[in-house]
C-alpha cells in the first residue's frame, strides 16, 4: 500500500515539475520574444529620429551633400511617400514612422541600400524660399538620356571627388545602352521627351521586376512619370508642371528627377508654395518700410513704384502664389521673373533691394 502511494507521489511530482517548468520556460520565452520586438521597434525609432535630425540639418544648410551609412539597416527597406502635404517615411513593415509637414523631401519611393545620399539645393522664387532636400542611395541609378544643356549641368552637379558622395548616374545615348547592374532601382531620365513615351523597353531592362525601374520625361516645363509594365512604359498619374525660374541649379527640376512620382513631387512643391505665401507677407511689409526710407522725389523711390517695379511685381507675385496653390502656376513664374528683374535694377542703382 505504502509503495503504491510512493509511486503515485513520485509520478505526480514529476508531472508537477514538468508543468511548472514548462510554464516558467514559456514565461521567459514570452519575455524574450516581447523584448526582442520592443528592441527592434526602439532601434527603428532611434534610427528614424536620427534620420529626422540629419534631414533637418541637411535641409537648412545650402548646397550641401552628405551621406548616411545605413549600417545594420542596409537590409531594411525604407519607404517615402507624400500625401496631402505631409511626407511620411519609415521602415517597411515596422510601425514606427516619421511625418513631416514642413520640409520638402524628394526621394525615391523605396530605398534599400548600404549608403543614403542627401543633397540640398535652395529653391528660389525669385528669393530663397527654402532648401529642397534630395534623397538618393548608392544603389539607385540615374540613366540620363537626351541632348539638353541640363544633362551636362546635372552630371557636373552630381559629381564629387569623394566617391561616397557621388550620385550613381550615367549618360547614355539610347535605352539599349543602359546597364541596370545590381542596383536596387533604376531611374531613366529622358530630357528630350523622345525616348520613353510610346517606345518599347529593350530586352536588357524588360527582364527586371516592374518596381525596379521607372522613368521621368521632361517636355519643356511639363514632367511626366512612367512605370514599367512588362515590356512597355505606362504613364503614372497626371503630367506636372515645373514651378521654376530659368537659369542654373533649378532646384525644382532636380527635385523632379529625384522624386518617386508626380503626386509626391507636387505634394512637396506645395509645401514650398505655402512657405512662399508667408514669405510674401514679410516682403510686402519690408516693401512698405523701404518706401518710407526715401523721399518721394528720390530716384530710388521712383524705382520702387510704377509699372514693372518691385512694388507692383511683388503684389502680382503674392496673388500668383495663391493661384499656383490651387493649380495654375504659369503666372507665378512670370511674376517671379519680373520681380527678379526689378530687384536687380534696384541693386544696380545702389538702392535698397527687396532681397
Amino acid at each position, binding site marked *: 500500500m505504502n509503495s503504491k502511494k510512493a509511486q503515485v507521489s513520485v509520478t505526480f511530482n514529476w508531472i508537477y515539475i514538468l508543468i511548472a517548468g514548462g510554464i516558467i520556460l514559456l514565461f521567459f520565452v514570452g519575455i524574450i520574444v516581447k523584448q526582442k520586438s520592443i528592441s527592434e521597434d526602439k532601434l527603428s525609432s532611434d534610427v528614424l529620429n536620427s534620420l529626422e*535630425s540629419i534631414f533637418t540639418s541637411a535641409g537648412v544648410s*545650402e548646397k550641401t551633400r552628405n551621406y548616411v551609412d545605413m549600417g545594420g539597416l542596409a537590409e531594411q527597406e525604407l519607404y517615402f511617400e507624400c500625401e496631402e502635404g505631409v511626407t511620411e517615411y519609415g521602415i517597411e513593415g515596422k510601425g514606427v514612422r516619421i511625418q513631416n509637414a514642413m520640409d520638402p523631401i524628394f526621394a525615391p519611393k523605396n530605398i534599400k541600400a548600404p549608403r543614403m545620399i542627401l543633397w540640398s539645393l*535652395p529653391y528660389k522664387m525669385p528669393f*530663397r524660399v527654402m532648401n529642397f532636400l534630395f534623397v538618393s542611395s548608392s544603389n539607385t541609378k540615374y540613366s540620363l538620356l537626351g541632348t539638353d544643356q541640363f544633362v551636362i549641368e546635372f552630371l557636373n552637379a552630381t559629381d564629387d571627388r569623394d566617391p561616397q558622395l557621388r550620385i550613381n548616374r550615367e549618360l547614355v545615348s539610347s535605352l539599349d545602352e543602359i546597364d541596370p547592374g545590381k542596383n536596387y532601382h533604376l531611374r531613366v531620365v529622358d530630357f528630350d521627351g523622345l525616348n520613353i513615351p510610346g517606345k518599347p523597353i529593350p530586352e536588357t531592362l524588360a527582364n527586371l521586376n516592374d518596381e525596379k525601374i521607372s522613368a521621368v520625361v521632361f517636355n519643356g516645363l511639363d514632367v511626366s512619370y512612367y512605370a514599367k509594365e512588362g515590356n512597355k512604359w505606362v504613364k503614372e498619374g497626371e503630367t506636372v508642371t515645373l514651378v521654376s525660374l530659368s537659369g542654373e541649379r533649378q532646384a525644382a527640376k532636380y527635385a523632379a528627377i529625384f522624386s518617386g512620382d508626380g503626386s509626391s513631387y507636387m505634394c512637396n512643391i506645395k509645401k514650398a508654395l505655402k512657405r512662399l505665401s508667408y514669405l510674401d*507677407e514679410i516682403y510686402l*511689409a519690408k516693401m512698405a518700410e*523701404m518706401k518710407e*526710407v526715401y523721399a518721394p522725389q528720390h530716384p530710388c523711390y521712383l524705382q520702387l513704384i510704377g509699372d514693372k517695379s518691385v512694388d507692383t511685381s511683388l503684389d502680382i507675385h503674392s496673388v500668383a502664389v495663391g493661384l499656383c496653390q490651387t493649380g495654375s502656376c504659369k503666372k507665378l513664374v512670370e511674376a517671379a521673373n519680373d520681380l527678379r528683374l526689378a530687384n536687380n535694377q534696384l541693386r544696380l542703382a545702389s538702392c*535698397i533691394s527687396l532681397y
Partner: protein
Amino acid sequence: MIYEKFQKDKKIKMKKGQIRMTETIAVLFIFFVLILFSLIFYYRYSETAFKGEQDEMFAKKAIDLTTKTIFLPELLCSKGESEAEDFCFDMMKLRHANKTFKSHLSDYYFNLFSYAKISVQEIYPKDEEWIVYEKKKPNSTRTDPTFFVVALKDESLGGQPSYGFGVVNIEVYS
C-alpha cells in the same frame, strides 16, 4: 503503552510538518522579496533610462530649433541672386516677422517651432529686444535657452546698410 508511542510519533510528525511548513513559507517569502527587489530595481532603471531619453530628445529639439532659426529665410540677410549672408538677420524683415508668425501660428509655424520662444536682443548700436516667436507650453517644467550671436543688418537708416550685432535667444519649453 502503544497508545503513548502513537501519540509521541504523532507529535514528532506534527513538529516535522510544522518545520516544513515554516520552511516553505520562509522560502516563499524570500522568493517574493527577491521578486519585489527585482521589480523595484527594474522600475528605477526604467525611470532613469526614460528621463535620460527625454533629456536627449529635449537637447536634440533645442539643437534642431537653433539650426532652423539661424537659417530662416524669413529673417536671413539676402544678397540678390548670391548666397545669403551667414549668421545675419535683416532688420527690415525681423521687425515684421513676428506678425506673420503670429497670424499663421496654428496652421504653419507651430509645426516649425513647436513650444518655444525666439527673441533677438540687439546689443549694438541700440539696446532693444524683439520677440520673434512665442508659444508657451501649459504646465511646462523647464526651459532650455540657447544663445547665438548674429549680425543685424539695417538698411532703413538712409538707404545704406549698417551692421550691428545682437544675440538670438532660443528657449525650448519641455
